């Protein structure tokens, strides 16, 4: 994959907590490239480094060594203000517990990152309406989070994660709080964002949900232990009853 297509590129990323004998490597020499249109799932047991990987990819945590490139910009070279702008403009986060602001309507929640970025109110709202429509939440813009079901709240959170020109969506257990049918709907929504050109990284411990991804990366003790190939032989299913 050329760097032009890569939305996220981690190269030799390590993260060590503590010093000397007490040092623990949460991530150890991880390299990973996620392209536009691709959904990559990260699987691993608790403590395998999944969440650390996601927070480093989103520029919320600096790696101890290695480099992180988002949409062609190496984020280690950025100052605090530039990094925070890149995060707002390029990266969207989706969490297990939605993290919507209760006092704001769905539309206001989705428009918020744009408004924080200085986009005028009218433009932010029209972008937010478009993002809500893309997750099948057209017409629910005036609802407050408490009036929406879990699945609807998560769709609003995905709209917020993709509003504007954000090209990278980082989702940490986005289906963890949802029943299986609603969870599938949320994954279909994330999948559709990738079809529209976003790069999606999905952290999950649920194999059935990871299976929505093009590629699955298995983390173990902070290292990439294994990954599925993007293209699978048809023969895998034949021979099953």
């Amino acid at each position: 994959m050329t760097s032009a297509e890569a939305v996220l590129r981690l190269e030799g990323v390590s993260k060590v907590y503590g010093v000397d004998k007490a040092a623990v490597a949460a991530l150890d020499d991880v390299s990973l490239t996620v392209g536009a249109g691709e959904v990559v799932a990260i699987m691993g047991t608790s403590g395998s480094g999944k969440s650390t990987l996601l927070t480093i990819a989103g520029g919320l945590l600096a790696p101890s060594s290695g480099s992180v490139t988002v949409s062609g910009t190496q984020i280690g070279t950025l100052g605090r203000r530039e990094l925070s702008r890149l995060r707002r403009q390029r990266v969207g986060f989706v969490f297990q517990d939605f993290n919507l602001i209760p006092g704001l309507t769905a539309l206001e929640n989705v428009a918020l990152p744009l408004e924080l970025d200085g986009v005028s109110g009218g433009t932010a709202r029209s972008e937010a309406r478009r993002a809500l429509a893309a997750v099948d939440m057209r017409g629910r813009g005036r609802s407050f989070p408490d009036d929406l079901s879990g699945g609807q709240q998560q769709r609003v959170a995905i709209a917020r994660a993709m509003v504007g020109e954000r090209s990278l969506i980082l989702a940490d257990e986005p289906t963890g709080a949802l029943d299986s049918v609603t969870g599938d709907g949320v994954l279909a929504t994330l999948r559709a964002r990738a079809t529209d050109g976003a790069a999606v990284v999905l952290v999950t411990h649920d194999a059935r949900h990871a299976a929505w991804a093009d590629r699955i990366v298995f983390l173990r003790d902070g290292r990439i232990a294994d990954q599925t190939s993007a293209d699978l032989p048809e023969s895998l299913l034949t021979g099953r009853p």
Partner: protein
Amino acid sequence: MSVKMGFLALLDGDSAYGYQLKQEFEARTGGSWPLNVGQVYTTLDRLERDGLVARDRTDDDGHVVFAITAAGHGEVTSWLSTASRAPGSDRSELAVKIALASTLPQVDIGAVIQAHRKAAIEALQELTRAKRADANDLVGELVLEALAFRTEAEVRWLDHAEARILQARRASDDGTFKERKARK
């Protein structure tokens, strides 16, 4: 489930000829169970021999149309109301293989478990792709989802087994350490 019961259940809905049954069977099992033509007619012959279906008529195109008999209807009703358990569910090939492998000192059990986990997840990816391609076909999706949940359960069990084996090995390492210390 057998092809025989599948055909009977389809015929319980409406009479049909062999090729129709093949197509319906394949569509309604989500494409997971392809049949060959020989299998279709052998099955129909046996159902007819057992008095569960009968030749109803020949249609304008010369197809022999089969209909269910009263005995066939009874068979379907009893099949649907009887709980299905997977054959051999008392002894899973996967479980026995992993359990045995975990006792062999020369085997890297983590690698064995990962190989099975990866294969299961790749199968799940294939099922998910088939399901997405099948959108709006509820029956087909349900069959694919049943396979998906079963495969997911396999992965969860593999995760669990790996954690249990690691835990047991750590405990036994500690034991050996303490023993050695005590001997000193």
